[in-house]
């Protein structure tokens, strides 16, 4: 049994963290706005739009994210005989489409919980529909969705580990390889500490946001 090359392990783990963080950040950058658009489709008066979105939401929320990762990475090759984009890009696509579905439903819950009187009051005052949405509805929705969003953010931090199934070299993938190479649990402990640290930052950020939004009820 050989000793562990700690400097090397540390370097690859830092790279893995970077990949995990990019996956997390890019997924949010895509899903936070995309979820809003999808929730609008889910509430559309057009039944074709509404039901297509419902089907999409069911598939995304009703099948394992792990399977979706496989599908997006291997699907293009098996179905069309073409090479898809690189692993990381396809992981971002899978995470984006999956998390956008959850965010869309959280947004919808928030939007539907705003009393209709708010919109009517704004309309009676002559605000346009977009002014009403941006100035009256959306700020109140953001306050209401903050707690459930906190949950989702923390889950996403941990879910980034799933990208290892298509061999994206994120934190967990690096730890797994390092652990099997060195016959040691240390890389897993480092990985666990990393996820915990990241989520404690997320938790702090949400606590701060909730405090900032507590100036009204």
């Amino acid at each position: 049994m050989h000793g562990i090359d700690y400097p090397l392990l540390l370097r690859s783990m830092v790279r893995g963290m970077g990949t995990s963080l990019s996956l997390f950040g890019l997924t949010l950058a895509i899903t936070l706005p995309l979820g809003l658009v999808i929730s609008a489709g889910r509430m559309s008066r057009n039944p074709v739009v509404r039901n297509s979105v419902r089907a999409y939401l069911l598939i995304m929320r009703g099948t394992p994210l792990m399977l979706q990762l496989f599908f997006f990475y291997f699907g293009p090759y098996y179905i069309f005989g073409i090479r898809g984009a690189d692993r990381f890009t396809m992981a971002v696509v899978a995470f984006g489409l999956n998390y956008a579905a959850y965010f869309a439903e959280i947004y919808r819950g928030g939007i539907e919980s705003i009393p209709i009187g708010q919109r009517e009051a704004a309309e009676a005052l002559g605000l346009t529909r977009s002014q009403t949405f941006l100035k009256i509805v959306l700020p109140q929705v953001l306050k209401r969705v903050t707690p459930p969003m906190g949950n989702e953010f923390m889950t996403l931090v941990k879910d980034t580990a799933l990208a290892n199934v298509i061999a994206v070299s994120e934190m967990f993938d690096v730890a797994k390889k390092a652990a099997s190479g060195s016959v040691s649990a240390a890389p897993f402990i480092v990985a666990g500490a990393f996820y915990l640290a990241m989520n404690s930052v997320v938790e702090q950020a949400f606590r701060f946001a909730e405090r900032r939004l507590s100036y009204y009820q």
Partner: protein
Amino acid sequence: MREILTVSGIRKSFGAHEVLCGISLTVRKGEALAIIGPSGSGKSTLLRCVTQFETIDGGAIEVDGETMVATDSSGAVRYADKSALRRIRLKVGLVFQNFNLFPHYSVLRNLMEAPVSVLKLSKSEAEARALALLSKMGLSDKSNAYPYQLSGGQQQRVSIARAMALSPEILFFDEPTSALDPELTGEVLKIIRSLADEDTTMVIVTHEMAFAREVADNVVFMDEGAIVEQGSAEALFGGATHERTRQFLTRYNR
């Protein structure tokens, strides 16, 4: 005095249920009209048709000389174009039963939002206007408060000020005191009374009969989607000619 609101034979159905069966009334400048009637008689629906929250199925509505909607001889209902409807909307103020203040805005911002983003007033102009209205409502010390920090009576006074901040030609009140604890109705009625004293043109749906009698110039009694009787407040409260009106009034005067 010129007519600010002319409603002619409007009809409105929800599905097969005809909620307004040909309502006609006029409100002249400076006049306060009270609408009374049992619950479910269509009073709110009438206000919602006039304030563009519901579309009508027949009849016509004119606001301040401008046609909002009319029905042609073939029975087709035609609304004015978007810009006219918008212009008309700004001439009409609406005070809701449950206030509907914007909870995430301070009292001052509630009053400034529409003047700034709809009328495009400057912030300082809108603020001056808002502060003047608040002092009129006896709420000068509440300009930085948030709605949840106010009592129901104070919230309703803010919402009256908010509607007035656009200087509408006519103000509609839909049961402005019905959501309030009895001890808070007085302060709101006092404000509406003072508006009436300044000859503000108003339509007030209310169950406060003593108040209606005192404040309104004219009164409309509605039942089952129709106007049973209308006339001056004195005539209607002093000696209603219809049995149904009399029954309704005795029920409320006990």
